[in-house]
């Protein structure tokens, strides 16, 4: 009796879920596919070390939980919490600057029970804050709004670049900039911003760390130092090129197996994938990424309010930055910047924070404007 009653309630819940699902199934399936590809590649790149796959699987599980939790929080609540969330993130960044630890750079904060990188928080908090601010403004934004948004982005991006973590700083800045772009900032203002950025580049060069400058120099001419800093780029290109159209096959990539590839489970996992699965695999993976980005923008376009729209769009477009910077790096198209290949590279914090972001997307999707 009781069990039947329970079953009744369960089916009722399931029906309501089906009528108005909390998650966007196509997006979820695409994410699962990329994650699976990641685990398969990691097993090979990690030299058939099962513990790497288990660890990464556990992080996906954690990310999945975060995704479900976030999808349950309505965007209006998120919007109300945004300034606090952002403020806490910035305070933690300052804290990490003072007491953080990490080899050669201050990225980690040790909270005794867990060690984490506050910069990961800002990947979400920054676009949230920009969206929160623009939500209350009349769009398209004017110069004054532009200035305020520049400050909102500049504080965390500057603090993270100071750590020094150029890759994350770039991602944080981009996520905020995308929200601004999507809010309809006029093209000539965008042009003006790009002009200022171009003019500031030589100044930025002055502030880069020596190892970062070397990476840029090597990108310009990797052959100039084939045994030193250019080594990563050359070995990665060889791995990719040797993969050919069909690839060498799973766990057949000599570049990775003989350890010519550096960081072959983290930043350079895409090279391993390209070597073993070839152009066909690469195009499939890129297609999956394009689908995820497109779906995210579609969800954004159907969102209920300005805040949700800007946030969802920014999350989707930021995902592109990961793919482009990492793919560009391993093919020698862009300088070496430590950005992981999303959901494939080994490493917990980025997987969890990415999936949390997609949880926000799911929530925005669930609370979309049906009336429209």
């Amino acid at each position, binding site marked *: 009796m009781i069990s039947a009653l329970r079953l009744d309630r369960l089916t009722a819940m399931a029906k309501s879920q089906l009528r108005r699902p909390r998650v966007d199934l196509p997006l979820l399936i695409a994410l699962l596919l990329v994650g699976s590809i990641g685990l398969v590649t990691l097993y090979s790149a990690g030299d058939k070390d099962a513990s790497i796959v288990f660890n990464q699987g556990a992080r996906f599980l954690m990310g999945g939980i975060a995704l479900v939790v976030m999808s349950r929080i309505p965007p209006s609540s998120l919007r109300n919490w945004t300034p606090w969330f952002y403020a806490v993130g910035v305070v933690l960044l300052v804290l990490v600057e003072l007491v953080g630890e990490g080899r050669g750079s201050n990225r980690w904060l040790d909270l005794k029970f867990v060690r984490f990188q506050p910069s990961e928080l800002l990947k979400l908090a920054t676009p949230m804050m920009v969206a929160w601010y623009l939500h209350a403004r009349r769009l398209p934004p004017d110069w004054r709004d532009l200035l305020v948004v520049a400050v909102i982005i500049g504080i965390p991006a500057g603090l993270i670049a100071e750590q020094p973590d150029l890759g994350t700083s770039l991602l944080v800045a981009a996520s905020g900039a995308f929200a601004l772009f999507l809010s309809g900032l006029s093209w000539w203002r965008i042009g003006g911003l790009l002009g200022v950025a171009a003019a500031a580049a030589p100044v930025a060069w002055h502030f880069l760390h020596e190892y970062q400058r070397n990476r840029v120099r090597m990108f310009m001419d990797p052959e100039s130092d084939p045994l030193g800093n250019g080594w990563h780029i050359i070995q990665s290109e060889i791995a990719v090129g040797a993969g050919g159209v069909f690839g060498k096959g799973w766990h057949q990539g000599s570049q990775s197996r003989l350890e010519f590839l550096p960081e072959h489970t983290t930043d350079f996992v895409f090279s391993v994938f390209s070597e073993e699965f070839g152009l066909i695999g690469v195009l499939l993976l890129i297609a999956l990424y394009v689908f995820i980005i497109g779906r995210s923008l579609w969800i954004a376009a159907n969102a209920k309010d300005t805040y949700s729209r800007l946030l969802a769009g920014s999350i989707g477009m930021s995902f592109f930055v990961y793919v482009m910077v990492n*793919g560009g790096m391993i093919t020698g198209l862009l300088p070496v910047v430590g950005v992981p290949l999303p959901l494939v590279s080994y490493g917990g914090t980025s997987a969890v924070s990415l999936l949390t972001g997609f949880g926000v997307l799911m929530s925005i999707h669930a609370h979309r404007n049906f009336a429209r």
Partner: protein
Amino acid sequence: MSPRRSELKDSGREVALFQRRALVGFLIIVVCLGVLAARFVHLQVVRHDEFVTRADQNRIKLRPIPPARGLIFDRNGVLLADNTAAFRLEATPEQIKNVDAMLERLREVVPLTDEDIKRYKEQRKGRRGFNSIPLRFRLSEDEVAKFAVNRWRFPGVEVVPYLTRTYPRGAEFGHVVGYVARIDEADLRDLDVTRYAGTTHIGKTGIERYYEKLLHGEPGYERVEINADGRALRVLDSTPPKPGKNLYLSIDARLQEATEAIFEGKPGSAVAIDPRNGEVLAMVSVPSFDPNLFVNGISHVDYRALVTSPLRPLLHRALVGTYKPGSTMKPFMGVAGLEQGLRRLDDTVLSVGEFHIPGQSRGYRDWRRGGHGRVDLVESLAQSVNTYFYSLALDMGIDRMSSYLAKFGFGARSGIDLAGEGSGILPSKEWKRAMYNKPWFPGETVIAGIGQGYWVVTPVQLANATAILAARGRHYPIHLLRATQSGFSAPVEPMPVAPSGPSFIVNMTNWDRVRDGMVAVVAGPTGTAARAFADAPYVAAGKTGTAQRFSRTGNEVDTHGLDAAQRHQALFIAFAPVDEPKLALALVMEYGASGSLDAAPLGRKILDAWLAPPPSAVPVPGAAVLRMPPNAVPAQAAEPAR
């Protein structure tokens, strides 16, 4: 800027604007990823053949060759730290599938401690898989032979010859030279991984640590051809490593040896400096420890013994030991009093056995019951009359006293080239306020005048101050490194001697008078060290000191029932010959009844060893120089450095 038309937001327009932007954004993204895809096509299709060839030819790897660590010599070329050939066991992570099973089997052949295994596993994390990682150092011949027979069972594990650090003089230089030990996690945190690729040991204490950069050298690389499994086939070419620099210390091993022997194992410390250039000639801390124990990981038993010993052999007393200076402070006070115009050269004081601050009942005693009578500065130094310095301190006040004594380096690190130096305490009103948040009392000024109370000095500091006094107020920064040498065929390059500033003593007759007092200490009829220095073949200037180990007013330690040696520390400072000082010395005996009886005789022996060595006791200079080709003997070191 257009004026706001309405606060209501035009929602429909905004949505349309967003959707246009999202579309444009998506198109840009597709184009960018299209470029990325095109790049993949370019690499994987157009240039595919080229990269296949390059991947096949990719059979060359770089293997780091660690540099030989620089050797350490004394000023005459006596070897203090050597590299000797030994064998170690190494394992290459990428060639070992099941680490735990392999280690279990390996333990049956070659004994491995749990610590060896733990350390190996820690190091596996940090480095690339194809770099081999040491598993155990200093294999015995038996172990090497036993492993050679079983080698086929352990692919990826090899016996590798290497150079290990040894310290031929053992405990004698344990504190000064220090030791190297295996690189641990804490070292890895701020280590240049490329420079230390292949390096297993790093300087942990003493000179080994302070001059790690000079001693380490630059690693070389060899290009190695590997087969399809990653195993090295042959070496193609190599860039040789640049060995670390050889260091020549200013220490004279003979004086060091003599000085250490004088202590007969009783805890204490002595530092001898050449006041003409700041070179440290001997730096002894007793008891010491054998640095060789640490090189390949000290055993728990040995380490416990060192740490739990009540005599604390690991404590570098000369550098961080804290002592009350006692009466050794009086010459410096004497200079301060004359130079500040508080006392004229011939001013006298009447010592009646007890000194009182006007209006206070508490008495401050002289060491001789009934007092010393009417005495001037010279006699006050010779007999160590407290009353002279009680009244001088009271007139001077604590702040003027400490600011003048700071010129002798008290209360600050001497800057000697060793890490972790203590800075001692030079009390002042401000210091006490910051430390205890209490006001300064005049009585504290009085006892500060004889080096009691809050005063704390380290032996290095006291020796440094004595050297400055010996050099008539000129300060040569004290140092241990005398010269460096890049390889044995290279010339020895002396370190530039930092020039001193001008003397801070304005009127040199003041200095002369203090010197006369110090000479009276060792040569005058009433001198406290006169008996110790009877028949000395040179004229020295010195001062004894006896400091209470425990504050007499404090009740934390019951001093009743302890004999004098347990209650006191004996100190002695000296420089000689008095006309042209070649040696300045500070000496502390931790359990000494008085400076006069216990410290001064030892000081005499150290001065004798340097200034008037008995002919038979002098080892032939250069006899111990085994590692130096004759043409490499440094010019400065070839002649006995006196």
